[in-house]
């Protein structure tokens, strides 16, 4: 089986080494394509690392009017082809995982391409090579899985849509898929009224991240 990525958010300590390392990738030099988001800053220090999951049927590629996003035979969904990308941002807003980034001045979309310059030569992607906790790992399924007690799952359900991906998420349960239906709420807020739940109590870190991360502009 081909090598792929295994994301284990339980292990993520929010150090953002991956964010820094991602900038070193030769296919998107100087710009980081990975996200580390606080899931509920006032309740928990837990963070969610997000790389491109490389869907088997990528919504981003199919909604591209310029046919600029291609998937290669390894199943890696590449950044938009530079001559074609019109900066329409359809992919940015259609991606179920909130992954593609854009830059209006450059008229360009870029996204995680699993460090194709490295992985095509047998090296690990930048993020996986620096992650101190193994929250982001890269390898063959049969190599990684025996080392973990968590369960690799590559199926997400967003509302009515089933999305299968090349990248695996390591689940602490026996579920076979991750179900995302609605906004979601952190454990500590369960039982609170809707209004209380809506008070996110965002810290200044969130405010700092807000402008670039909410719109995905790099």
């Amino acid at each position, binding site marked *: 089986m081909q090598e792929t990525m295994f994301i284990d958010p339980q292990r993520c300590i929010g150090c953002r080494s991956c964010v820094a390392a991602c900038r070193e990738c030769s296919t998107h030099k100087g710009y980081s394509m990975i996200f580390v988001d606080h899931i509920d800053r006032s309740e928990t220090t837990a963070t969610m690392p*997000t790389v491109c999951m490389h869907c088997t*049927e990528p919504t981003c590629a199919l909604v591209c009017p310029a046919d600029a996003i291609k998937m290669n035979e390894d199943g890696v969904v590449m950044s938009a082809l530079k001559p074609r990308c019109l900066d329409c941002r359809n992919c940015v*807003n259609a991606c179920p995982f909130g992954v593609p980034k854009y830059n209006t001045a450059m008229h360009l979309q870029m996204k995680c391409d699993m460090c194709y310059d490295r992985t095509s030569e047998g090296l690990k992607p930048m993020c996986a090579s620096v992650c101190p906790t193994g929250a982001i790992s890269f390898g063959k399924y049969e190599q990684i899985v025996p080392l973990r007690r968590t369960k690799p799952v590559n199926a997400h359900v967003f*509302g009515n849509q089933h999305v299968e991906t090349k990248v695996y998420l390591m689940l602490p349960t026996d579920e076979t898929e*991750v*179900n995302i239906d609605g906004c979601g709420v952190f454990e500590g807020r369960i039982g609170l009224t809707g209004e209380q739940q809506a008070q*996110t109590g965002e810290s200044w870190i969130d405010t700092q991240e807000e402008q670039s991360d909410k719109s995905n502009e790099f």
Partner: protein
Amino acid sequence: MATAAKKLTRSGAINYMHPTIIGVIASAVLTLLVIVGSRNLEHFDSALFGYTIASIVAFGAIAFRYAIWLQRPATRTYFRRGLQLFFQRKKFAANTASAATTVATNLVAQKFIFKRGTMRWLMHALIMWGCVIAALITFPLVFGWVHFELEGDLGYRAYLFGIPTQLMQGRDIFAWIVFHGLDFSAVMVIAGCAIAIHRRLKDRGAIATQTFLLDFVPHMMLIAISVSGLMLTASSLWFEGYMYSFVAMVHQATVIMTLFYLPFGKLFHVVQRPASIGVELYQRRSREMPQAVCPRCKTEFVGQMWIDDLKKVVGELGFDYRMANGQTLQDYCPRCKRIMRGLAYAGLPDTKEKVFYGTREEAGHTETTKSEKSSQQ
């Protein structure tokens, strides 16, 4: 080097009937323009017959390819909406100004390529302007839209569609520049392609993602055209026409191959890129309209029209991202989509299960369940 791309289609069968009709009409229109523009073929140069036929066929093929491209749900939506927005009466002047700005900054000055890289801009400017100059000189000549007549000993007068223009003196610097226009454009194209190939051989990112057919062949074709074109000049100027007809044949062959490559390869971006006029207009206008508010973080992140169109496209493609709460996934901003997935993940472990705390095999672990916890609150 990257492997070939997988074929991704989800928009149903492609209709070839209409694109074929459009392609044939395009070719017919160009044929008519050649006949009319050359005054009933009076000024048509029969030596350029091969080029004319290739241009007519390639023009039809480009129209065919463009029509196929417009069948993509997203492309169709942008195309229709772009035209609809452009022709709104009240905004027509503003729209024309917006389109003119896009043409000036994106298509002429190409500021966006400058932002991507200075050398990349220089490379692209050399290749593009080289090709534009060459096309402006050659196509009118090939179609018989321009011809020259000798006046006096050294006076040349160009006739555009049979209409006389400025008289040039054959030994003038101006005439020299005009007659060597194709040589200058060839040098520009070669220099631009050299920069491009140098980058493709050195840049690690480019090496990983490029393909021979998409990224090298177009440059090699352009270099072949330019070099063979320069050889024609060299042959006539310095070698008394040595091998001229053979080089002319080679030049014609490379030009025709490139014309046929236009609709199907990397060079299609030449035809595709002007779509950015429509896309920018769409973006400008959608910024003036009511904005979509992310239902989770309440941030305005993009125009509502934009999101509505996108949801329609996503639906046409056969995706169904509708959720139980009545929202569609695309209603949420990218950051909230990531956090929602994080929350779904965080909500997975049921403390009742043995696997909590990451020990799937170890049994006997007891802990209050999530439902018990919530009832305590």
